[in-house]
């Protein structure tokens, strides 16, 4: 059974400061390794293969929104133990 790992970070930024976050994420995608942590929680993601990209933009009633979503299937992870070999996906 796979347990859900989640990371949420909300903050208010200006265009300058948000660039730093976006650049860090871009680099993570480039290196196929994203590490996100907050307090004691940590999540590591390995984007690989084909990634589904969704870009949404909206402007309504004086407020605007743009969202970028990347989604992919993780490759089955191979785990070895002392004697057995097991294959699982999470």
């Amino acid at each position, binding site marked *: 059974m796979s347990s859900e790992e989640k990371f949420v970070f909300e*903050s208010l930024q200006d265009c300058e400061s948000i660039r730093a976050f976006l650049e860090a994420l871009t680099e*993570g995608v480039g290196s196929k390794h994203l590490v996100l*942590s907050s*307090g004691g929680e940590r999540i590591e993601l390995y984007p690989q293969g084909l990634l589904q990209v969704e870009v949404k933009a909206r402007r309504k009633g004086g407020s605007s929104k743009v969202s970028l979503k990347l989604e992919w299937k993780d490759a089955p992870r191979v785990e070895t133990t002392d004697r057995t070999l097991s294959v699982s996906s999470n």
Partner: protein
Amino acid sequence: MITFEGLSENFRFLVLEVSGQLRATHEFMRAPTRELFDRITGRDDYIDNLKTIIENKCFSRIHTDNSLDRREIHRIRAIHTIAVNLERIADFCVNILGQMAHLSDPGRLRADEYDPIFAEIAASLNRIIPALEKEDLPAALAICRSEYELDRLYEAVFHRTLAEMSDGRSVHDRITTIFIFRYLERIGDSLLNVGEALIFSVLGEKIKIKQFEALQKTLSTSGFGDSLSDIDFRSIWGTRSGCRIGRVERVRNARSSTGDAEGGGAPGGLGSIYKQGNKKKILKERDNIARWSTLFPNLVPEIFGYHEDDDSAALLVEFLQGCTLDEIVLTGDVEILQNAMFVLLQTLHEIWEKTATPGPVATDFMRQMRSRMEAVLQVHPGLRREGVDLCGAGALSTEQLIDRCEAIEKTLPAPFTVFIHGDFNVNNLVYDHARQAVRFIDLYRSRDCDYVQDISVFLVSNYRLPVFEPALRERIRWVMREFMLFATGVAAARGDATFQARLALALARSLYTSTRFELNHHFAKDMYLRSHYLMERIVAHRGPWENFRLPVEVLDCGCNAIMREETPCALAS
């Protein structure tokens, strides 16, 4: 007296029954018999039932009868509270009987000690029906005060018995004696509740005897005279500072010891505001009002009376004519709002000019923020964050931000102080359009301090007005813009180079601490995020603080241009 469905009869019976139980218990203490024991314990069930009947009738009447006016509802509520306490008194009588069984020598109980106690309780029970029927406040107060007397009598027995116990003899009986008298003392506690319920029935307000006495004393030192029946005491609000506030007016057509022809007025003509609470706060408020009056006559309400006891104090102050500024912002005509703002800024300018004292003086915005953090998290547990690492790009935790900002704040003392309001909330300003005057209320936090404290509280108190209708929001924005224009003008005129950095810290504090009063979670989160953004900008700043620019977009008032303008506004120059 309410006469529906026999409630008043049931209530009378209950009072009579409990009085009977008390007499029988008194008799039992003098000469305990099995017969009397059975009679008292047998009547207890009847009293329980009577109380339940009264309780049911009170609730069903309040729930089903829409025609009841407030006065009748208050009376029904009072009857219910009194019934519950009477039943408890009857229970204490049975408890006394139970304790008597443990006495090896009932003669050990001294009649000269319990007779006055029973007499006091009986007198109070006799006052209940007339007090309720005639709305007799002095009788209600007399019932309340019997608790003091019963406490005093109990204490004498307690100390005497305790002293006798040191000889080591009859310890068992003596402990039992204390238990028995302790039940009599607890009857006093119930009588106090009965008396307070009667006060509630007359005044329509939950008021404790101590508060009532404070009010009475404050009124009598304020020219209201002694007759409380001439006073309409209403609208008691609990406030955030924990004080109780009410408006006091002379009842129309009542006789007036001050010769006030209109009858609606106290010494100030319009009634007064009565404030009762923590002694330190009330005393501070009184002293601050006195200081304000010396500096700026008519800026603050007049004090009519002050009274204090061991741990609380009460203040009677003038009720000011006019509207609070938030009412004007939200509902006043545009012209009136413009006038109010003009008068406010002129007033502030005058105050700041007159009270400015050269510094430097340390500020404590971050300390204020930290000290209120627990209160914020109690209302909104999610409004703090852990440090974040986002693929190498970081964000500090709430605590880290406060720590860093506090270290920076230490390097940014205010160049001068002024006498500040201290809680410069938009609803602590009263605007009198007829007299073209702004006046200050709620002044217990006034002190010599950085003017930035008042500026940030005023701005955020506008920002957090829970109004989202675009036209009204625009009015709020206008008020904030006008205020910012004025404040930056003053800062420029005084050469206050670190004004914007200090204001960023102060706004971060005000935005964050305001969330504890905001139950709309979305709005509270908005203020929390803005507060953190400001702290991040402060922490990220490099170079001299004179170059720091407050990101005024946090206030969403469209005054970005103002902060770039170097021209001081007309008033400040």
